[in-house]
């Protein structure tokens, strides 16, 4: 019962702030609502009993990615942007694409209307740790390589070129 209330609350917050992210004109507000939406998704993970995902969603997404977005918005901000349209002319076609996608996804989802949870959720952190250092140790090491490459790429792309060409 409490889980259902929490789910509906978090889902409403996530969906409403996601709509605000894609429609608002002020990009700073968009970034802040993105943080709210990601935090609400963390709450949805909580109702699923995924405790480690809940914590890492808040650490990585709310604490990392949303803050990074706000930094980028502030670095690139221009006051003229506040009055410009932020949405292009193709919104009608985009709505059509969205409607078709939503219809297809719902056709898949409604097959699971009767699938309720069989048991109470158990803590997953220990099992996740065993999985990451057991069966999935090679993807785990590869993902650290991906992170290193992303770090190097970010440094490479943002450094100033020698000789004042940039």
């Amino acid at each position, binding site marked *: 019962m409490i889980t259902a209330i929490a789910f509906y609350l978090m889902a409403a917050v996530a969906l409403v702030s996601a709509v605000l992210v894609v429609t608002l004109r002020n990009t700073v507000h968009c970034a802040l609502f993105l943080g709210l*939406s990601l935090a609400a998704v963390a709450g949805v993970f909580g109702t699923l009993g995924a405790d480690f995902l809940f914590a890492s969603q808040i650490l990585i997404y709310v604490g990392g990615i949303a803050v990074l977005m706000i930094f980028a918005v502030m670095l690139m901000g221009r006051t003229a942007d506040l009055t410009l349209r932020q949405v292009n002319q193709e919104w009608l076609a*985009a709505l059509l694409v969205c409607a078709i996608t939503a219809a297809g996804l719902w056709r898949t989802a409604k097959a*699971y209307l009767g*699938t309720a949870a069989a048991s109470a959720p158990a803590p*997953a952190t220990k099992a996740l740790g065993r999985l990451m250092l057991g069966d999935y140790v090679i993807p785990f090491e590869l993902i650290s390589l991906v992170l290193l490459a992303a770090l190097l790429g970010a440094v490479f792309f943002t450094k100033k070129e020698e000789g004042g060409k940039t």
Partner: protein
Amino acid sequence: MTLTLAHYLALGAGLFVIGIFGALTRRSVIGILMSIELMFNAANINLAAFNRFLHPEGVTGQAFALFIMTVAAAEVVVGLALVLAIYRRWDKVYMEKIDILRG
């Protein structure tokens, strides 16, 4: 009002569709990156929900969601670095203005 898997799938589908709409219609590059983050989140919700409802004895879905989170973090770091480099070099933020590859 017991929660079923379809509830979570519907939430994931809603977030994904909103993300598609944003990625197709936003003019600024940062707005598109934010919409892509929304789509990653929808996929993560679906993975965790399938894990909870169909295979509650394992945690493979949650492990995949963790991998997706890491890849999303790497993607947003490189994407924002590219956006900042474009902004510094050409002073352009909007997608339709970035057209130097047009013949």
